[in-house]
């Protein structure tokens, strides 16, 4: 055997190893640390409804290296307190509980760098004690006027280790009141499946998490099953990025709802929800202010509009301020929408991704441009002057988010990193006119 032949054979074997090697690598997994035995919250009392809202604000960072910032945004929901920082798109989501007879408010949860997999535990307590007592009782009349500014003291950790690094945050100023004017829109829930924030995108679990991650509106992707039932899924084909199941392959619209339930689950094991289940979850389990239905096919339009009419009426009955918009992504979908018989009920909200003229001609309230087309500041201003809203999709990088927030005044941004957009808007965003239909 010649040396050339030996070298060629060796190269062949090496090439084989290079080709086949990657198939043996193990996917990185994200740690979701929790406190042992439920931590201090295990024996805590719940915080009265609405009391946590007194803790919203922009805070100066006294100590807290994992956030890497001088200032963070603190955002509350019914039962969570979240911290958002710009570097590494860092966030912490904590549950709140009252201990020691209602004189101490404790927050426990996990922080994460959304740009990577760094994570760890975080435990904070609210100060001063007079404010903690007021929050835990829901009675703020005992506080002086103005009330003392909130502070947080506590510790952060790394990985699953118990936290031990000091963290402290001092109230700086109040948040901008964005309701009805600007919305952080969670892209198919709290985060993308590939970012693994604890639930698969387009799952009921992710919808329930969306507010805690910084969004007030959720965007949901809607497909239709072979038996005509709208359900949530992003891609046209099932794939291992988003779904699992031995028989979960091929075009999603070939599956009946029964087949979907028998053969497929979302990436982290959740059931693939129907659109109706998703809308019921938004109404019953969240305080979200809006839903954008990203319809993936013209055939999705008609059943989605009927469900929007039903759940818009239900929201009104429940005195919930939630607006549900049917997305119109292309001309075929626009034709399907404008040709509906019977036509959409008066007040049905729609969002057009085409040109500004299409928004007006279709009688839709919202324009949803792709951000890569540019800030379109003059179009944004003109539409807003007519009472329309403008929501850009889908922006995850701080550089672009900052550029769009400083060159135009959108009514919303769709993002896989709601906490980052929340923090950036509160830091440098300008509130748009309040005439938009948001």
């Amino acid at each position, binding site marked *: 055997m010649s040396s050339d032949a030996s070298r060629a054979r060796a190269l062949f074997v090496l090439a084989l190893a290079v080709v086949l090697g990657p198939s043996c690598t193990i996917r990185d997994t994200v740690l979701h640390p929790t406190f042992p035995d439920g931590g201090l919250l295990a024996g805590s009392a719940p915080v009265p409804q609405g009391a946590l809202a007194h803790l919203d604000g922009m805070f100066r960072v006294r100590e807290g290296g994992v956030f890497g910032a001088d200032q963070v945004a603190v955002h509350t929901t019914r039962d969570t307190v979240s911290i958002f920082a710009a570097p590494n798109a860092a966030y912490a989501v904590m549950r709140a509980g009252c201990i020691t007879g209602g004189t101490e408010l404790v927050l426990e949860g996990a922080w994460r760098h959304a740009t990577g997999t760094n994570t760890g535990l975080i435990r904070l307590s609210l100060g001063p004690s007079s404010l903690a007592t007021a929050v835990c009782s829901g009675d703020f009349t005992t506080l002086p006027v103005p009330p003392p500014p909130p502070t947080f003291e506590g510790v952060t950790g790394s990985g699953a280790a118990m936290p031990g690094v000091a963290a402290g945050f001092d109230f700086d100023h109040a948040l901008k009141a964005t309701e009805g004017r600007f919305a952080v829109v969670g892209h198919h829930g709290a985060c993308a499946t590939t970012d693994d924030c604890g639930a698969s995108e387009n799952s009921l679990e992710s919808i329930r998490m969306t507010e805690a991650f910084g969004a007030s509106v959720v965007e949901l992707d809607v497909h239709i099953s072979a038996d005509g039932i709208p359900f949530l899924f992003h891609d046209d084909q099932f794939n291992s990025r988003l779904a699992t199941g031995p*028989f979960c392959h091929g075009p999603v619209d070939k599956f009946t709802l029964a087949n979907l339930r028998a053969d497929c689950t979302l990436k982290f094991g959740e059931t693939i929800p129907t659109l109706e289940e998703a809308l019921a979850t938004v109404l019953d389990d969240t305080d979200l202010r809006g839903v954008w239905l990203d319809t993936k096919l013209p055939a999705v339009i008609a059943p989605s509009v009927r469900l929007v009419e039903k759940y818009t009426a239900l929201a009104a009955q429940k005195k919930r301020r939630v607006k549900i918009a049917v997305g119109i992504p292309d001309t075929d979908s626009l034709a399907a929408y404008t040709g509906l018989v019977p036509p959409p009920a008066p007040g049905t909200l729609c969002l057009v991704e085409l040109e500004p003229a299409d928004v007006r001609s279709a009688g839709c309230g919202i324009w949803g441009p792709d951000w890569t087309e540019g800030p379109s500041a003059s179009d944004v201003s003109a539409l807003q002057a007519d009472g329309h809203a403008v929501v850009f999709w889908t922006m995850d990088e701080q550089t672009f988010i900052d550029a769009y927030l400083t060159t135009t005044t959108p009514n919303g941004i769709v993002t896989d990193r709601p906490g980052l957009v929340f923090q950036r808007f509160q830091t440098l965003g300008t509130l748009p006119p309040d005439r938009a239909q948001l």
Partner: protein
Amino acid sequence: MRRLLSLLSLAVALALAPRGARAEGPTAPPAPRHAIEVGVAELFEVTTTSPGSPAGALFTRRVGSAVALSITYRTPYFLSPFVDVGYYPLYQRTRVADLGTAGGRALADGTLEAVGFIGGFALDLSRVRLRAGGGAFDVMVRSSVLGATIRTAESDMGYFLALDGYVFKAPRFRVGIEVRAAFIVEAAVTSVGIGFTFSGDAIRF
């Protein structure tokens, strides 16, 4: 797996075993340098990477009979290009599924099969042939629940590795044992098989 390795060892040993010296006639014509070789293989196939959880299953099957047809352009160089088309029965399962609002608990049955279209290169070492390649697998699903059956398919990328050991090798044809592994990336399925292979020279030049 241990049985599979034993059979593989046997195939390699048989293939590499010394043979009696062949009589060389003074007028033997020179052997052709090129050939188009056609081969068929039938294999006992096992899906080694589980494509699904067997929890709650009433019946699962991950073995079956695979067949493949390959065409190799055998060259005097050290690598010979080939194409291979193979059918792989991957998985079958029957279970009681909870359909929730779509129908409660119901019997669900499904099968997963694939047809692979592979291109690659073969390396001949005496009586052993190593083949490696990549290509597309047409992954096919049949799923039945609540009396209705759907059939879907998707094309996935995949890799292929095969080792043939020839126990009988004549100038124009060969008979041997083949061990092959197919990895279908998107479906995350690995299938390993062992069986018989027969190949012959259709054209020699």
